[in-house]
């Protein structure tokens, strides 16, 4: 019962965070002109969103071996790479 509650609570919190970060991304993108700090912020927000999906929704936080890191690599490395290509 307790772990069921914990599992569901984690999903609720993660979904709320994803929605807030999505709105924040759009807000920052609309109200601020293009700059390196804005790009870094948007990349960070995207990384957090990707991490939430892989760890909480995909349930890879406690996955064996390197599965978590393989999926997290996509959520972390690709946004950094894209930001780098566009603004460095």
């Amino acid at each position, binding site marked *: 019962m307790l772990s069921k509650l914990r599992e569901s609570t984690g999903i609720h919190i993660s979904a709320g965070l994803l929605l807030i970060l999505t709105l924040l991304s759009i807000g920052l993108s609309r109200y601020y002109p293009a700059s390196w700090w804005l790009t870094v912020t948007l990349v960070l927000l995207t990384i957090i969103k990707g991490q939430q*999906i892989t760890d909480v929704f995909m349930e890879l936080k406690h996955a*064996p*071996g390197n599965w978590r890191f393989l*999926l997290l690599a996509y959520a972390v490395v690709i946004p950094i790479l894209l930001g780098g290509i566009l603004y460095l």
Partner: protein
Amino acid sequence: MTTCLAANEVAVDAQIKQAGQGRLPGDLAMWFFILMELTVFAIFFIGFAVAERLNPQLFSGGRESLHVWVGLVCTLTLVISSYFVALAVVKVRENNNPAAKKLLLTALLFACVYLGAKLWEYRQLIELGYDLSTNTFYTLYFFTTAFHFMHVLLGMIILAYMALKTGKNVYSQQNCQGFEAGAAYWHMVDLVWILLFFLVYVVH
């Protein structure tokens, strides 16, 4: 009596924890397929970013013709849809197929909103005279988003199949690998869109 009940609850908790954690959810084959799909999308995204770097004015102009609110609606609906699918996995592990079915149908409803918003945006762009051959931006935009759109359609078919099976009480705590694999695929679709949203609608 109370102690016995508490001990039993702890044992059930441990069982559920073991069912959902400390192992790879779903099928190993599905995870390899997911990694392969993510790699293909990553190549598209890098290609998109490189093309933008080579021709920033073209991409800046192209982005202005897109509807930011469509990108926002698509992101919100996919996140909410993924949320309901994640909750459905929890319900299946509790042997509650009827609740899982309702959650899957809700997830499908939100996925339909995504499809509607995306199709509306495609129609608007085509009516304005933009298509795959207009310029590099539209070629990459249509190709990448349509490729993702096809993955959403496939994911919806998988979710619908899972909903049908939950209607027949097929899944249980001991038999939920297929359900977890289908859910993982849907979350992959969501993960890809998060990056697509960043690349196409957010960054400028």
